[in-house]
């Protein structure tokens, strides 16, 4: 009965693997046909596996997808030259030896990541293409994850594929001269993917853990190859591990958001923290210092505190200040304001809030209003705090966040009533 559990996420994970390995053999110019073939294979599996799941589901999928690709390529070739007899082996450009080896699949997936990050694709197309082709999400799922309309994602995917064909991109790693810049972009994509999952501006949280898992998987894939290893890649991996260790504790059994103040620290997943620590040590062995280093240091500082009260806010503020010097952003300023509130440096916090470029926060603007509310609440100015919370509630697209903010608002309103009553009694 549990057999379908054994193959949890098999289709989605295998989608990326199959597309990558088949692209390696048939060429990047056939990516559309390959994707169709893989999709057809899943359709076939859903019908055939209704009765019996094969002994080795992965091998079954790969071999059916390969044959389907050959079929589709042949029929399109035949359509192109109807007058000519098509040789049966035209499709196989490179002799294909099965079963595909794990390192071959991994290598193909890495190549695909670099294709996704090619500069001829626009940044927004890059992330959509990566989530689809490497991670196997549908347009609908990507749209949900990135808070975009489904047909916008479909257009980005079409444009990405057109750009690949138009620029004759090869399924290969970038030349040494471009490697550095491309790896930087690959890391950004991984970071963005993780953040979408972790902070989840998504209205529902279905894809959230999946996005984080995918980002970690891709990072690990890069770290396996010596040529990609660097201080910033290790620091990024550490950062993802540190954050992911808290993923479970961010929501309770009712699927409500739990503030880091109230998170059950005993549920933080220790093996991930350990993995993060060891990656951080490796990151330190390199000379470079990146934003990922500072962000990982901040995440580690939170994990170190046994209770919320024991958090070393001074230290965290110091890391944020360094991060802001290296890579200025509205988010850093917002976080610095939050940390200053914890340190009761109210005026510094207010000044940061007053001056930060709010529109840069985009979908996370509600955090800014929430922080203002926090400022007034801490100063016991509840009459001013409540309208800011209302603003925050209006700006969030995530149902969980909204529920959380509404509860906060009710708490403030009760506090306000309490203080009024005590004044007049």
């Amino acid at each position: 009965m549990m057999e379908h559990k054994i193959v949890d996420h098999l289709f989605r994970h295998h989608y990326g693997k199959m597309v990558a390995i088949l692209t390696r053999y048939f060429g990047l110019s056939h990516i559309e046909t390959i994707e169709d073939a893989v999709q057809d294979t899943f359709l076939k599996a859903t019908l055939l596996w209704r009765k019996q799941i094969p002994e080795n589901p992965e091998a079954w999928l790969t071999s059916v997808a390969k044959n389907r690709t050959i079929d589709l390529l042949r029929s399109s070739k035949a359509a192109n030259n109807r007058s000519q007899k098509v040789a049966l082996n035209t499709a196989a450009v490179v002799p294909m030896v099965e079963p595909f080896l794990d390192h071959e699949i991994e290598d193909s997936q890495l190549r695909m990541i670099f294709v996704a990050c090619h500069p001829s694709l626009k940044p927004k197309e890059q992330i959509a293409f990566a989530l689809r082709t490497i991670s196997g999400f549908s347009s609908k799922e990507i749209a949900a994850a990135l808070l975009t309309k489904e047909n916008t994602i479909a257009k980005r995917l079409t444009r990405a594929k057109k750009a690949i064909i138009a620029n004759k991109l090869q399924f290969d790693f970038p030349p040494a001269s471009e490697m550095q810049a491309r790896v930087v972009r690959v890391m950004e994509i991984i970071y963005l993917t993780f953040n979408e999952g972790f902070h989840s501006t998504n209205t529902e949280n279905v894809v959230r853990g999946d996005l984080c898992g995918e980002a970690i998987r891709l990072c690990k894939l890069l770290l396996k190859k010596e040529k990609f290893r660097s201080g910033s890649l290790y620091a990024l991996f550490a950062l993802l591990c540190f954050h992911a260790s808290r993923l479970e504790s961010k929501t309770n059994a009712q699927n409500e958001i739990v503030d880091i103040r109230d998170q059950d620290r005993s549920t933080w997943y220790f093996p991930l923290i350990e993995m993060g620590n060891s990656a951080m040590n490796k990151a330190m062995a390199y000379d470079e210092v990146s934003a990922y280093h500072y962000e990982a240091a901040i995440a580690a500082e939170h994990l170190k505190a046994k209770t919320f009260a024991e958090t070393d806010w001074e230290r965290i503020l110091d890391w944020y200040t360094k991060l802001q010097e290296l890579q200025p952003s509205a988010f850093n300023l917002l976080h610095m304001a939050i940390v200053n509130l914890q340190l009761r440096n109210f005026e510094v916090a207010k000044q940061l809030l007053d001056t930060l470029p709010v529109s840069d926060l985009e979908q996370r603007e509600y955090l800014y209003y929430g922080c203002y509310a926090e400022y007034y609440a801490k100063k016991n100015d509840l009459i001013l705090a409540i309208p800011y919370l209302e603003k925050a509630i209006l700006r969030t697209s995530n149902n969980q966040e909204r529920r959380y903010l509404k509860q906060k608002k009710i708490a403030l309103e009760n506090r306000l009533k309490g203080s009024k009553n005590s004044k007049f009694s």
Partner: protein
Amino acid sequence: MKNFMMIFIGADYQELGLSPEELQNRMGKWFAWGQKMESQGILKGGEALVPNVKRVIGQKRTVSDGPFADSKEIIGGYYTVTAENADAVVEIAQDYPDYDLGGTVEIREIMVFDQ
């Protein structure tokens, strides 16, 4: 005991463009349903049908290729089961996984001819 056919209409996965994850979830439900019927000894057989349709119509035997109507009306497959009566099959059909995709189950008793 009588034999019945459950005919599955509509909910064409290809048409609906389901994602790999969704397809896999569907498959899991079909698998669980099949296993359940099998363990109760009620499942006799069944097949899935390719959605391409060819029809031969009328006196002139005109041949036409699908798709014809709405894909909502296309038969995607069938199961034959054994049960006491049609109501019992209605009960079995409660577990059909694709109602949420607009799918329909039609239940027909298989006719038995006396010798």
